[in-house]
């Protein structure tokens, strides 16, 4: 056992778990006493801890079922009496008539339903301590689309309200049937990912309950609290979970019961597989030592170093740039099925790799970096992923690009293979370019025109917008703004305006003009050099003198055109053949601007945004004009195209 954080802490934690039943017997009017932190590096609670979950679950690895009891202690900090409580029951999304599956099918016509995907979570009983058994009061609701077949949200009405600052305890018995993994959760062979597996109460947010149905494009939103989870699994299973493990008992029936404690987290996920290979190392952060626990697939062990390297480098940059990672552990899972990969949970992330992944393809690094980033932008800064998906995915994608650029170099952060290179932000930007003007970033995730637009805007456009924002306020200022935002809103549920105002505050600038177009609007940014060239000033002479470099006077004109409806100030760099260059600054408010120069020199080139900082510009190729035509790029592509056609011809000619 590598968990040696003090017997006292273990005892306190164990007592806390053991006292769950007793505590559940009477409603508490005061804030429960917090035991010393076990799972965090802080000596005091980091969040308000609205909820405390005590779950005792038994997993049947053969049937892929789970039977559990859950005691949820909810502190009513809403400031109002509450008598209705909504709960997520997201495992029910894996049914053909659910909203999730309807949307999945709508946006990917190739998606085929298979019975093995079917999963369910059934509440066997629900009792509210002091109010009796309310199982018969459970009612499934569909607040987002009214789908009567969707059973991913239920609510229960209590016979009497819970007063402000009072606590209420729900005792729930439930049964899960996992399906083969389709998205994020479920089994695949002997691999098991337990996510969204227990009834989880909604969030009182902005004066109302916020408990959305499970959608194809949405993730999660929940309150911070503590999790004491006992998980009974077969003894041969290697288990990873949110939180830290604080106990293990071997049972006589061939099972073992593992106890986990999570603090100041808002979800709990776990994974089990008998043949995980476990690797561990420590990261020395500014708050103390963090254990990195890596669970690798047997066929991927050669990539363990690769995973550890990117984790260390990523954590170092996050620690320096944005703030400390306050938990004692992070578990990195190399999932047994790619459909469970690339996902984040508090203190547990899943990566994505294959046995043959070449070093030059940074898919491993992109996945691991990105999912670790969510420990900051989701797990700690817990934004509403249904309504402000860009706040976690977008900011995280931007940060992913910055971190990978810093590690691998700007042009090679996504690919450096066979002399073909690609940057991470270039991938994100190309995603955005394919979904330019359907949906604003500020739209609810499940209201996008389709899954593709949601992905390309939420990840791609948001990252591109933040890169472009660097041009307005400076890279370092944006980094400071993100740090301020993180430190101010960690363990809280900020809104998009909280973020946007933080950036304005740190930069000292009014950025509404930018937000209105980039975040709330679907404006498209596209500038072009419409026309550029030099002509002799003495063009009207019948017999003009012979042209001489440095003596003949020319009039150079450059016409810059704003093709899109996004107004953005840009620089225009104009170079002349006598070595002179001029940088013009245009506010972009009109549709076009003309620059004119009379010089003893001709134009060499004109270029909008010479620093290539306005990444929102949808077309970089029309941003410049070079007087001397260079056909190299064209011929290179044409020649490769010729070769590919020849190869295709040769393959077909094999039939002759």
């Amino acid at each position, binding site marked *: 056992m590598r968990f040696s954080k003090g017997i006292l802490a273990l005892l306190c934690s164990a007592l806390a778990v053991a006292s769950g039943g007793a505590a559940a017997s009477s409603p508490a009017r005061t804030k429960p006493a917090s035991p010393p932190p076990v799972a965090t590096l802080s000596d005091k609670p980091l969040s308000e801890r609205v909820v405390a979950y005590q779950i005792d679950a038994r997993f049947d690895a053969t049937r892929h079922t789970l039977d559990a009891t859950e005691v949820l202690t909810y502190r009513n900090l809403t400031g109002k009496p509450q008598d209705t409580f909504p709960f997520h029951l997201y495992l029910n999304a894996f049914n053909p008539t659910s909203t999730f599956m309807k949307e999945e099918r709508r946006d990917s016509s190739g998606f085929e339903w298979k019975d093995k995907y079917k999963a369910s979570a059934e509440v066997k009983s629900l009792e509210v301590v002091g109010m009796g058994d309310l199982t018969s009061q459970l009612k499934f609701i569909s607040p987002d689309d009214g789908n009567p077949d969707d059973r991913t949200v239920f609510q229960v009405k209590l016979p009497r309200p819970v007063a402000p600052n009072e606590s209420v305890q729900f005792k729930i018995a439930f049964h899960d049937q996992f399906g083969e993994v389709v998205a994020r959760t479920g089994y695949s*062979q002997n691999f098991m990912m337990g996510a969204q597996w227990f009834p989880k109460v909604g969030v009182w947010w902005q004066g109302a309950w916020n408990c959305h149905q499970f959608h194809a494009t949405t993730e999660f939103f929940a309150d911070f609290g503590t999790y004491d989870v006992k998980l009974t699994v077969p003894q041969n299973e290697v288990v990873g979970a949110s939180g830290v493990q604080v106990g293990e008992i071997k049972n006589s029936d061939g099972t073992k019961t593992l106890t986990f404690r999570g603090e100041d987290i808002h979800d709990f996920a776990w994974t089990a597989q008998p043949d995980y290979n476990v690797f561990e190392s420590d990261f020395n952060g500014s708050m103390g030592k963090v254990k990195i626990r890596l669970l690798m697939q047997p066929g991927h062990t050669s990539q363990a170093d690769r995973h550890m390297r990117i984790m260390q480098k990523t954590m170092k940059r996050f620690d320096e740039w944005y703030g400390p990672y306050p938990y004692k552990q992070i578990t990195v899972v190399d999932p047994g099925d790619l459909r469970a990969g690339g996902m984040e949970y508090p203190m547990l992330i899943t990566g994505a790799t*294959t046995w043959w992944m070449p070093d030059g393809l940074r898919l491993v690094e992109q996945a691991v970096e990105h999912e670790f980033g969510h420990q900051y932008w989701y797990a700690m800064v817990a934004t509403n992923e249904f309504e402000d998906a860009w706040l976690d995915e977008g900011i995280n994608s931007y940060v992913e690009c910055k971190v990978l650029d810093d590690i691998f170099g700007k042009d090679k952060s*996504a690919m450096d293979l066979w002399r073909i290179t690609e*940057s991470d932000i270039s991938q994100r930007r190309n995603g955005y370019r394919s979904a330019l003007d359907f949906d604003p970033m500020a739209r609810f995730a499940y209201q996008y025109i389709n899954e593709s637009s949601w992905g390309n805007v939420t990840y791609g456009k948001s990252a591109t917008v933040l890169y472009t924002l660097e041009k307005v306020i400076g890279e370092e200022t944006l980094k400071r703004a993100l740090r301020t935002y993180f430190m101010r809103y960690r363990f809280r549920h900020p809104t998009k305006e909280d973020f946007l105002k933080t950036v304005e505050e740190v930069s000292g600038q009014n950025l509404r003009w930018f937000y209105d177009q980039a975040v709330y609007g679907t404006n498209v940014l596209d500038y072009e050099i419409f026309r550029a060239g030099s002509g002799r000033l003495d063009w009207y002479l019948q017999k003009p003198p012979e042209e001489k470099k440095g003596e003949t006077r020319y009039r150079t004109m450059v016409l810059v055109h704003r093709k899109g409806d996004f107004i953005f100030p840009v620089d225009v760099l104009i170079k002349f053949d006598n070595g002179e260059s001029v940088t013009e600054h245009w506010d972009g408010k009109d549709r076009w601007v003309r620059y004119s120069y009379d010089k003893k020199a001709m134009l060499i080139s004109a270029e909008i945004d010479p620093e290539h900082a306005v990444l929102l510009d949808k077309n970089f190729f029309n941003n410049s004009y070079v007087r001397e035509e260079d056909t190299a*790029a064209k011929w290179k*592509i044409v*020649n490769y195209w*010729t070769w590919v056609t020849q190869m295709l011809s040769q393959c*077909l000619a094999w039939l002759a």
Partner: protein
Amino acid sequence: MPGLLREGFSRAWHYQRVLWFIFFISFVLSHFSTAPVTHKLEGSTGHSLHAQRLTNMFDYGSFSALSSDPEVKLFEVAGVSMSYSMVFLVIMLFLTGGILEAYRSGRRLTTREFFEACGSYFWRWVRLFLLMAIVLIPPLSLAYVVGDQSGDMMLNAAQEKTAFWILLAGLGVAGFLMMCIRLWFDMAQVRAVVEEETGMWRNAGRAFKITFGNFRSLFWMYFRISILGWLVFAIGLYVWAKMPPAHFRWTILILEITVLWGFWIRLWQRACEMTWYQRRVLASIAAPAPIPLAPPPNPLLTIIPPPPADTPR
């Protein structure tokens, strides 16, 4: 048969102008097919500084941005290339008669003779092509099924290596079957030229018997040439990958050599098969006719001596 590859090589080399002719047609047709690409790129890259990211390096992000630009949409014209490839297939069907006739005769045909042969065999090859297309359905289906199934398996870490090997084995089997079928139909073409066969169904049946009656030697002949082809192709790609992106004229040259080599390999295989078949025919002609053996003496029969020569008949 000793020296078969060498003799096939010699025949193909002797008539190498057909190789250059095919390569030329392939290059010209492919180049024609790029006309819409050239047209689409002209406006975007010629005067753009950003285009240098495609020449001085190969920035996939910039290429992807360019190819998906609504004003360019490069891959929309992929159908044009496909059409030109189909035209090339028809041309190759046409030329095959002339090529095989040249290999059969062992001399340089006049242009007239060559194209007369092309014309006289064309419809026979079309019929064989249709027959072969039907025969190819099972191995192609196998490749599709294996690809589909292994694709699903590859999502699972416990099965991904198995899936890879299944895919490799499946494609290997499909490739092997396709090579056998090609060998068979090449034999049918050779036989049609040598035997002046016109009935293609009957011809395919007889070619089937010959091919699979001599399968080991024929397949070994094809296989060795194919391995050489793949080896040179792999070396070409390796050299291409190692060359700096800015030296694209040289990289194109390397890639064109791989195309030329591909055509050469195919012609060599055909020349070898023709040589093999002709040797076989020659062998059957040169061999003395079997002498009927005298029946063994039957003790139950009485041998009657022939009558004297002067006996009147």
